């Protein structure tokens, strides 16, 4: 192939860029390549044990491909006042970014994305800008208008659909307040994105694949989970093209709304709390999936399908060679069993309503149709079974801004943008990134108690703490340091006993009012009570 840009092919730079792109592609798709190589080895008989088909690769970190000099040069260009006003970058910037985005750092690409997609660098990302440049940028940043919407907390999806219907194409920033609550501003808006993220994960919507339990079991009534269980990340559930029913129409609407919400979250720099799978991020970025991508969201199914595929290919290879029929038959056994004895129906495993094939719908999988079976299951799982849902998602997304703008990022980076990142909370880091004021300093005993308590928090307690203070259970890209405004802890004054008070927050300012509790245990008790019982409404305090 060639680089997808207008660069002169006779230039010496072209060959170097092409080589770098090939290397980067090899690195990114190393799992696919090694899996395919292992599959071929099995087909030719070099490998005879199906267990050897398993692959475990380690990839070179993405940062190794970054060119510091090119990144600096791009940053200079993006800070040029003329470029900012005219929104017209030099050709080398756009061409290199479209052909070899991996040459630039994630932060530079983020700024480039903001500039090309929205026309300016938003003030929320001040932390990512150079210190020297922030002074200049501040005076030039245009002020965004804000549009306020009132939503029903108990019917979040319906409210969100109405909001997006009238707001998706607007450039104004979305602000949310809840019915019968007086709180407004950043905190309620952050929580809106969190609530809708959780709502999308309910299994009743029929959107996602998940761990499936038996039919009509007692478990479903008592211990059944309301949410989809997908430990490897969410991926769309296959829906058959042969069946057009009202329930699928609802599913498509939800994917359309999901596209709008995701795009809006990226645009306004809000954090979503929804764990998409790597394969779904690849779909968002416009990449094609194959059988090896199934491994990222359903490793058991992927392993079995890969083994079946290897067996079918080997059978074909043996038939094309001069081997006899007896050898062919004896070689095609799956872990000591004939394929027929597995009693696998020619249907999509786990989804009985999906029509895999009209002709074979009553057959069992056998050595004769094994290859066809694998092909149909893969197609249903990652192509035709989810094509319409993906199309709905894309159309929703494109109403806010073009989805192709995201292609400068990798799937890991896209996940960071959407869902923030998990931060390690060690003592020195907490002291550096938290501001103490109005009666507290970094060495005050209550402050030290607080820092120790939140360090000892488990994962879900930490998430509850973050949601209590900021409205979102996750931190933005960059972690605690990127929180804007900075997390601030102040002394809460009261005429009564401090130990009877509860902490309170101003989520718009990430502002925690903390009474001076007498002991660490008392602080933990009151803090845990506040972050668990103090959710669910915004009122003035």
């Amino acid at each position, binding site marked *: 192939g060639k680089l997808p840009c207008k660069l002169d092919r006779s*230039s*010496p*730079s072209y060959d*170097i860029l092409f*080589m*770098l792109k090939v*290397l980067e592609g090899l*690195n990114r798709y*190393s799992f696919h390549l*090694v899996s395919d190589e292992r599959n071929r080895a099995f087909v030719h008989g070099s490998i005879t*044990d199906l*267990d*050897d088909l398993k692959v475990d*690769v*380690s*990839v*070179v970190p993405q940062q*190794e*491909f970054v*060119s510091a*000099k*090119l990144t600096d*040069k791009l940053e200079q260009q993006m800070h040029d006042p003329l470029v900012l006003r005219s929104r017209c970058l*030099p*050709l*080398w910037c756009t061409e290199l970014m479209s052909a070899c985005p991996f040459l630039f750092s994630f932060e530079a690409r983020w700024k480039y994305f903001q500039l090309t997609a929205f026309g300016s660098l938003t003030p929320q990302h001040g932390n990512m800008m150079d210190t020297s440049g922030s002074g200049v940028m501040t005076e030039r940043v245009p002020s965004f208008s804000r549009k306020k919407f009132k939503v029903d907390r108990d019917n979040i999806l319906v409210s969100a659909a109405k909001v997006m219907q009238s707001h998706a194409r607007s450039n104004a920033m979305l602000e949310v307040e809840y019915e019968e609550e007086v709180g407004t501003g950043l905190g309620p808006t952050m929580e809106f994105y969190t609530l809708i993220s959780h709502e999308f994960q309910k299994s009743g919507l029929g959107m996602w694949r998940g*761990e*499936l*339990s*038996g*039919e*009509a*079991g*007692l*478990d479903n009534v008592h211990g059944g989970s309301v949410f989809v269980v997908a430990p490897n990340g969410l991926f769309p559930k296959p829906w058959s093209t042969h069946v057009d029913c009202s329930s699928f129409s609802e599913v498509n609407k939800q994917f359309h709304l999901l596209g709008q919400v995701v795009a809006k979250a990226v645009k306004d720099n809000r954090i979503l709390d929804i764990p998409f799978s790597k394969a779904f991020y690849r779909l968002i970025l416009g990449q094609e999936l194959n059988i090896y991508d199934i491994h990222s969201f359903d*490793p*058991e*199914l992927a*392993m*079995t399908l890969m083994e079946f595929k290897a067996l079918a290919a080997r059978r074909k290879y043996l038939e094309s060679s001069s081997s006899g029929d007896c050898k062919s038959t004896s070689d095609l*056994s*799956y*872990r*000591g*069993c*004939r394929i027929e*004895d*597995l*009693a*696998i*129906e*020619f*249907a*999509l*495993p*786990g*989804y*009985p*309503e999906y029509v895999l094939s009209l002709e074979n719908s009553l057959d*069992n999988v056998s050595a004769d149709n094994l290859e066809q079976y694998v092909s149909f299951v893969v197609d249903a799982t990652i192509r035709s079974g989810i094509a319409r849902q993906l199309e709905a998602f894309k159309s929703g997304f494109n109403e806010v801004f073009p989805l192709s703008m995201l292609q400068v990022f990798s799937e890991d980076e896209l996940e960071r943008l959407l869902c923030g990142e998990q931060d390690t909370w060690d003592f020195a880091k907490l002291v550096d990134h938290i501001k103490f004021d109005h009666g507290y300093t970094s060495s005050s005993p209550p402050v030290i108690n607080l820092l120790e308590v939140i360090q000892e928090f488990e994962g879900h307690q930490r998430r509850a703490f973050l949601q209590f203070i900021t409205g979102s259970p996750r931190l933005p890209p960059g972690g605690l340091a990127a929180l804007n405004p900075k997390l601030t802890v102040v002394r809460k004054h009261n005429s009564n006993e401090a130990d009877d008070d509860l902490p309170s927050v101003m989520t718009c300012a990430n502002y925690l009012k903390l009474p001076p509790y007498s002991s660490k245990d008392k602080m933990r008790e009151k803090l845990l009570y506040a972050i668990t019982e103090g959710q669910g409404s915004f009122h003035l305090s």
Partner: protein
Amino acid sequence: MEATAKYNRGNPAVKRILQEVKEMQSNPSPDFMAMPLEEDIFEWQFAILGPRDSEFEGGIYHGRIQLPSDYPFKPPSFMLLTPSGRFEIQKKICLSISNYHPEHWQPSWSVRTALVALIAFMPTPGGGALGSLDFKKEDRRALAIKSRETPPKFGSAERQKVIDEIHEQMLSRAPPVPQLLTNETNEETNQLPASDASDEHAHKAVGGVNTAGSNSDSVNNDLPRPDSESEIVQHIVEGRTEGVSNHSRANLSRENIPRVAPTPQNPVVAIQKPKHDRLLTLAAFGLTLAIMALVIKKFFKINGLAGYIEGKF
């Protein structure tokens, strides 16, 4: 078989489960019994006999199996209902054949192989695994005696009916709990061969579960006296005979399994070498990639960058 018609044939897993039901009925095993509920073919009730020559011998242990909707691509989950001192009751147990470890499951396994493995796992140490216990031998033996008296109470009336039916049939087959005719010292010595034989059994039944293999090795290493060697050899032979005997009752699809038995050591040896080679290959691949990337990057910085930028300016 009239009940078969009631099952929902829309789910692709049903055909496989029905085949297993049929096979279980046509080739019953003296060591266990299992059948699905009439109203839900994805939920089975089972009972296993405690393995011979162990503190569980004579015990009848009931349990429930929940098959997933995408069976046999995913493993079932298991829950014991009779107290045994080895597994907690009414709690899903963690084994390499259960849904706690879906990465170890293979579609060629079945409810039958899972129950054979479960029997073989009973004398092994729990090791703190989820749902596992490590009671004393005397307590386990007392629980084994108690397990025969009455089946456990669980769930709806239909479930209880199936449980009672299974218990009745198992009672008619099961030999009584053996009496303690020897003293403590002999009893303790006797445990080692039994444990080893059981591990061997598990190894063959499940096609080489790593847990059983490692347990077998550790037991061998602990042997203090050469005098016991002949006794152990006898038990190993006995175990193999027993294994072959059990498998001869299975249908044609199971006949392939005993082939693994004659050479239990070979798979371990064979596995080591390819793994080592693969690691070296992957390491070389990664290193080559990194070196090439770094070299090209340096070359690019020195020459390409200046030329390219200068041209554009």
